[in-house]
């Protein structure tokens, strides 16, 4: 990937963030929070996308962003009032903008008609009376601008080094004149109009990583220019505020273009510099030049036969303030600036204009640096650490077999190794942990689209966006959440009329929340709609032959019927749901991840889907147990306690079942070996160990195992990769002895018990010698 491509990739990553900011800001405005800061943030987001897109010559994106930005600018300056309708339009515009970004990225195509209609709508909002804004004239900052800047540090032409060599701190910068005649220096005929442009940048201009040299260059495109720098405002170095702006440029421009064309050059620094554009010769260039030529600057210009890139020394000080500001001794300060032979400090300064300008981002402060790493490298690292954990366990087991005393140096060293391994694993996993925000931020748009498609009014409230979870899980959250949200709006919420009739706010609220609960991530999607129509669900399930009519079901069981395959309550096949992909698919894909999904519903008040997933799909803390000669791992998260039952605590119930009295409650006893089909008759529970477990739905059970070997962190290995899902088994792992052990799916075991006992599998074959 060449450098420009790499920067482009970064730009698109930032676009994602900016689009999220944009949407967040608009949603805040929708909630009535339309103070100046929010509107400004929204404006900046669009502005930055436009700026970056301009640098890469992404014309359609720039054009649309420009129209969008124009309207936002009007909103910002209160020319256009921010009404709910307007915000709704802006939100839809942000969707189109997102489409443009995707299209520019090569992912998908923009519907030109939609885009044009949206642009027209935006224009109409901006100024309902006036003619449409000249979109075609939207300035496009071309890529060469960027190249020129990146080249700049290498060509820092500082004519003032004589002066800077001076140890006298009271020296003044020498003003210098630079003639930029990139296009037509020898075109003597100054036939065009003469303009005088006075530019006095504010410090914000530099803070936003803009550059006067670029502005001058852009001006030079319009016609021959002569620029004069007035550096008289620059204070002596010991009084110099490195981050302030002091310089003023006066440019004499000869151009055929009109004032607007000149103003457009300064579009990106609008508000960040004092700009005066006057027709005619405000100052006699000859006189000004004569006055200014006293400085050593011309020498610098001569030294560069092709003065394409011009960077002014005083500007560099401000654009890259760190070297100066950070220098503890003032005398040392001029060095990085003054040394033309060593431009590196300037180039390496955090505010390096090259990168910042193209990306249009806020330069992160020191200490906040972020590195971008190819996820494959992290995945590889995690795999390797997984192998390390297995290996370490294997080693520990081998050492244990030799009967080495726990207090020996070897055993202690191994303990330390174990601790270290674990820490490495935790740290590596933390690298891959990400906030669920990346998934959540796609949802507001989905809600808007689904709501408009179904003719419902919905507002999305999100909570816990910063809840962190492993990347492997994040990637697979999107589909279930999308499905649950669609379902909540399509089936959950009533139409605005129905809601009004029921005395509710016509606008329904859909809540999406993420939280950590006992080592798992829980995603809740709730709505304040009508809740599940149990009678209807029940009758549909009977009609479709999914349940028998005689079956008596609790409310909860009826609610969960919607997860049955082949169940769909939509009367008509809508665009939104009912495409044959039902909640059963969601449930199965969630279960495949070791997750659970359940629903609770209150008639008239709404329903809540609860989705719970492991925090990572890579490792698991488990209890290693023996069951009928097999080694199983029970996820620690499910275990409440383990105990050895006393005879009086085990009570028979019914013909075969029995329960365990735990304090004041009775918990069903489940023999794991019997349930999984490892054995046909269970030994008395009093001979084994009981693990009191809690299922996802809060139901408790007492699992009977033969013996407990202890607690261990295991690396999760997929059974499905080479085989398929097995009922009662969540996944597999490899134990210290190199053998595969199965990880028990506690909830499945609890529900398996409710069915008839499975037929026994072939007895375990013992290897022949």
């Amino acid at each position, binding site marked *: 990937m060449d450098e420009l491509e790499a920067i482009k990739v970064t730009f698109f990553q930032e676009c994602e963030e900016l689009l999220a900011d944009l949407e967040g800001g608009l949603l805040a405005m929708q909630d009535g929070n339309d103070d100046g800061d929010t509107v400004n943030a929204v404006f900046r987001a669009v502005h930055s996308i436009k700026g970056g897109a301009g640098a890469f010559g992404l014309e359609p994106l720039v054009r649309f962003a420009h129209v969008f930005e124009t309207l936002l600018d009007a909103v910002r300056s209160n020319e256009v009032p921010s009404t709910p309708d307007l915000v709704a339009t802006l939100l839809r515009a942000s969707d189109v903008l997102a489409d443009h970004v995707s299209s520019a990225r090569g992912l998908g195509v923009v519907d030109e008609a939609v885009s044009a209609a949206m642009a027209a709508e935006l224009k109409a909002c901006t100024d309902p009376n006036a003619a449409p804004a000249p979109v075609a004239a939207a300035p496009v900052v071309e890529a060469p601008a960027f190249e020129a800047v990146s080249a700049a540090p290498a060509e820092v032409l500082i004519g003032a080094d004589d002066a800077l060599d001076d140890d006298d701190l009271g020296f003044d910068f020498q003003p210098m004149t630079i003639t930029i005649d990139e296009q037509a220096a020898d075109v003597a005929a100054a036939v065009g109009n003469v303009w005088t442009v006075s530019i006095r940048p504010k410090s914000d201009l530099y803070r936003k990583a803009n550059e006067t040299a670029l502005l001058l260059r852009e001006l030079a495109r319009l016609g021959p220019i002569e620029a004069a720098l007035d550096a008289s405002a620059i204070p002596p170095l010991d009084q110099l505020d490195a981050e302030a702006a002091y310089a003023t440029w006066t440019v004499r421009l000869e151009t055929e273009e009109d004032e607007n064309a000149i103003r457009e050059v300064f579009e990106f620094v609008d508000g960040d510099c004092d700009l005066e554009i006057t027709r005619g010769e405000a100052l006699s260039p000859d006189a000004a030049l004569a006055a200014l030529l006293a400085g050593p600057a011309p020498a610098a210009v001569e030294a560069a036969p092709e003065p394409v890139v011009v960077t002014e020394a005083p500007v560099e000080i401000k654009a890259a303030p760190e070297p100066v500001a950070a220098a503890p001794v003032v005398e040392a300060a001029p060095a990085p600036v003054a040394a033309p032979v060593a431009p590196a400090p300037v180039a390496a300064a955090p505010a390096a204009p090259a990168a910042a300008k193209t990306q249009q981002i806020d330069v992160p402060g020191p200490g906040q640096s972020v590195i971008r790493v190819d996820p494959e490298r992290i995945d590889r690292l995690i795999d390797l650490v997984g192998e390390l954990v297995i290996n370490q366990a294997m080693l520990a087991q081998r050492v244990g077999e030799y009967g080495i005393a726990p207090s020996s140096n070897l055993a202690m060293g191994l303990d330390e190794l174990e601790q270290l391994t674990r820490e490495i694993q935790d740290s590596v996993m933390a690298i891959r942990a990400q906030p669920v925000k990346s998934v959540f931020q796609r949802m507001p748009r989905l809600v808007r689209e689904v709501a408009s498609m179904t003719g419902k009014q919905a507002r999305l409230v999100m909570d816990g966006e910063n809840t962190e979870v492993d990347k492997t899980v994040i990637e697979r959250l999107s589909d279930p959440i999308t499905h649950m949200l669609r379902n909540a709006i399509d089936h959950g919420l009533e139409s605005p009329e129905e809601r009004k009739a029921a005395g509710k706010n016509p606008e329904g609220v859909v809540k999406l929340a993420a939280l950590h609960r006992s080592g798992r991530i829980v995603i809740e999607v709730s709505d304040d709609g009508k809740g599940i129509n149990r009678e209807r669900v029940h009758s549909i399930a009977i009609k479709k032959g999914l349940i028998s009519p005689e079956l008596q079901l609790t409310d909860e069981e009826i609610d969960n019927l919607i997860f049955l395959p082949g169940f769909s309550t939509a009367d008509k096949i809508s665009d939104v749901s009912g495409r044959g992909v039902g909640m059963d698919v969601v449930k*199965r894909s969630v279960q495949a991840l070791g997750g659970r999904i359940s629903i609770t519903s209150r008639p008239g008040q709404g329903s809540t889907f609860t989705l719970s997933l492991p925090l990572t799909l890579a490792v698991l803390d488990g209890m290693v147990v023996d069951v009928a000669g097999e080694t199983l791992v029970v996820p620690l998260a499910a275990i409440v306690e383990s105990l050895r039952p006393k005879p009086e605590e085990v009570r028979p119930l019914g013909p075969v079942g029995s329960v365990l009295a735990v304090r004041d409650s009775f918990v069903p006893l489940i023999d794991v070996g019997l349930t999984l*089909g490892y054995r046909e008759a269970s030994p008395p529970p009093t001979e084994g160990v009981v693990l009191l477990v809690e299922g996802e739905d809060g139901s408790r059970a007492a699992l009977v195992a033969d013996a407990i070997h202890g607690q261990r962190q295991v690396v999760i290995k997929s059974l499905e990769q080479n085989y398929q899902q097995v009922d009662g088994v969540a996944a597999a792992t490899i134990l210290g002895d190199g053998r*595969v052990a199965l990880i028990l799916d506690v909830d499945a075991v609890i529900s398996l018990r409710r069915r008839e006992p499975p037929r026994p*599998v072939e007895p375990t*074959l013992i290897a*022949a010698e």
Partner: protein
Amino acid sequence: MSEEIITTGAERRELISFRVGEQEYCVDIMAVREIRGWSPATTLPQSPGYMRGVINLRGAVLPIMDLACRLGMPVIEPTVRSVFIVVKAGDRMIGMLVDAVSDILSITDDLVQPTPDLACDAVRSFIRGIISIDGRMISEISLDRLLPEREALAA
């Protein structure tokens, strides 16, 4: 292990032949990843009788299938000579437990005869064809259908 070469004009491919009970079977050598000696497998609950369980193959969980049982014959009692052939079937890797590996054959497709009509459906769906070499009858296994269909997990 001897190598038999049969020369005909058509495009040839190589097969690995092995014994299951008294019968000989073979698979395309391109599907074979490795051949390993028997090691005890971890039993899988709720699985058909021909699934012997799973073993650890360098960090991956590999299901082991008793080929004899899959073909409707009595289960193989593993001996020291028992091996499993690791094959790629679709996107999955499985180990086929067989009694012994015998030969590598190089054949052309015109040597493959269609499977005769037999009463047993299992045999017909798992056998692609029959090869006759030196009076031996070797049945070629069709790997695609050996493993049960994975439950469709559409998203």
